[in-house]
């Protein structure tokens, strides 16, 4: 069970901007075990998507690059391999699902052609074999009448159907790892429920590991085994899902959980809030970035808190103000 599939160690990803080299991901470490689902949660700009894009090397070019750290996947360090080698892994051993299916699909090619491509490229099938395998994939993601649908263009399908196609694309070559970046955010709740159910079922069937990136704590609670909470480009807390929801230790995680209205919160009451907002990338301090948001002063802003394991499998960025009873 505990075999590690992906190990991200002190990853730093930065972008060249007019304001200089800015670190969007600042020494992020986590690992994903076989068959496990790891959730990455955080607000816009916290670096969760950049982390994912760094793993599969799909950073915006030429501005974005990994400047430090290691990404170990099946005995290879993805941070240092060439683009050509990465192409053999991406779509084959690592599948990617993006938020907006319309941008992940090519509007001028039929569904069948896009699905076949992976089989031809990675599995060496001929066109006919790839086409048949594609129909099988559509069946797997429960697309009705797959023999007809395979000849459709993306715009002929609804949002939910398109997202199923993207899932089919990600699963096509039976990857060891799926990276899903907000896979259901653009969908309605009833369709979201179908899609999450589908991903889970296929994942169990194929024994795939997954990194699920989302801002929706409900989705995290229902699908993940372990959770990474990111703030200001850093992992501020990481723990098994039950720990995160029932024993959060960092003030930011606590605030995030409290500020969400639940179905059992008394109606029309003032919700607890996290004051202020995330500082922009160029203004980030070296020290605790949540203290920066809370307008605290002094040494906490200058010294970077240690990222440490405070109880078994429960890691926090141990800021003495944000984490009680260290």
């Amino acid at each position, binding site marked *: 069970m505990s075999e590690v599939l992906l190990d991200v160690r002190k990853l730093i990803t930065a972008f060249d901007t007019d304001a200089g080299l800015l670190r969007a991901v600042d020494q992020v470490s986590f690992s994903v075990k076989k068959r496990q689902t790891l959730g990455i949660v955080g*607000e*816009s700009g916290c670096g969760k998507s950049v982390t994912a894009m760094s793993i599969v090397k799909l950073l915006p070019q030429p501005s974005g690059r990994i400047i430090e750290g290691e990404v170990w996947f099946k005995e290879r360090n993805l941070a240092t391999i060439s683009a050509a080698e990465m192409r053999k892994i991406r779509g084959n051993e690592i599948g990617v699902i993006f938020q907006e299916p319309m941008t992940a699909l090519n509007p001028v090619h039929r569904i069948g052609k896009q699905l076949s491509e992976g089989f031809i490229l990675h599995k060496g099938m001929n066109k006919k074999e790839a086409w048949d395998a594609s129909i099988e994939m559509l069946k797997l993601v429960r697309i*009705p009448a797959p023999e007809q649908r395979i000849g459709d263009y993306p715009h002929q399908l*609804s*949002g*939910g*159907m398109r997202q199923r196609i993207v899932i089919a694309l990600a699963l096509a070559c039976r990857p060891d790892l799926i990276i899903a970046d907000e896979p259901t955010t653009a969908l*309605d*709740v*009833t*369709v*979201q*429920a*179908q899609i*999450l*159910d589908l991903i889970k079922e296929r994942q169990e069937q194929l024994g795939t590991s997954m990194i699920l990136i989302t*801002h*929706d*704590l*409900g*989705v*995290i*609670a*229902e699908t993940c085994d372990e959770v990474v909470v990111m703030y200001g480009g850093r992992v501020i807390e990481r723990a098994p*899902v*039950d720990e995160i*929801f*029932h024993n959060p230790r960092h003030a930011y995680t606590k*605030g*995030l*959980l409290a*500020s*969400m*209205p*639940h*179905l059992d*919160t008394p*109606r*029309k*009451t*003032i*919700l*607890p*809030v*996290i*004051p202020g*907002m995330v500082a922009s990338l160029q203004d980030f301090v070296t020290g605790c970035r949540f203290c920066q948001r809370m307008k605290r002063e002094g040494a906490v802003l200058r010294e970077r808190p240690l990222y440490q394991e405070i109880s078994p499998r429960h890691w926090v960025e141990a800021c003495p103000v944000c984490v009680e009873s260290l």
Partner: protein
Amino acid sequence: MESPLLSVNGLKVHFPVHGGVLKRQIGAVRAVDDVSLTIAPGETLGLVGESGCGKSTLGKAIVRLYRPNAGQIVFEGRDITRASQSQIRPLRRDMQMIFQDPSESLNARHSVRSILEEPYIIHNIGTKEERRRWVNELLDRVGLPSSSADKYSFEFSGGQRQRIGIARAIALKPKLIICDEPVSALDVSVQSQVLNLMLELQQEMGLAYLFIAHDLAVVKHISDRVAVMYLGKIVELADADEIYRDPRHAYTQALLSAIPVADPRAKKKRILLEGDVPSPINPPAGSAFGHRISHPLYEQTMDKDLRLTELSPDHFVAADPCCLSPADYAAVAKASQ
């Protein structure tokens, strides 16, 4: 019961669909199809449903950004369904709207001051000095520094922009604000800040809200009553606590069961629906939801009147045999006779 601030009766908004070489009308999108509801002064009515169910169209039709095809909109006792644009304008003082994407609803070429002054200028209220003071008061009220007045909307974050949108909506002290997904584009921690602001303003100013959203937990939190829409029709309407505790319509039950609960210990049974919301272009006759779930009684609903009927005090459901328990259906069938 006190007289409602707004009442909507049998409202229909249909959009023509043109096709063929001659671009003749070949059908209609029945975006809003026979909807009735009321909003009391100071009340929040939540309106939920999936994309394409017609909830935004309903909101825009109420402020008369769309022309209704049939039915009636009565605001403070006045029928405004057919009012001309010049008759509508003074009404806009009392009825405002907040949109989902504040970056698109605020003019990027105007400073915040000129955006917030505009309502006063249009309605010819106050002197230059007074308007200046009011704008500062508005900014202060929504929690922005008065130095914001000379900035432009793109200089603000999403949450701050939504505050500007709210400031503009409350400038003329309206009685009703139609809020179309006001917090959907915001991050969780900013969302709660904006919801709190809306609750405070409601208390202070006695505002009524029609709160349109797809996030059911948010809607429950802010609403007094909740209406659930499916394919252009309201299928259930009840007190907010009651509809979440005891949903009676099959669609409401499915919708509620689909919300992911932010607690890994919660064990829940999920009703998984097949397929997507059907297209509102020439929708199936009879029970649209019965059609989606291929209910055995669907055929029988094709020539039936599935109107919203009171099942228990202030709890309304569509009289639809496919979507109600046999006992509930018997009760509403009896009540509607």
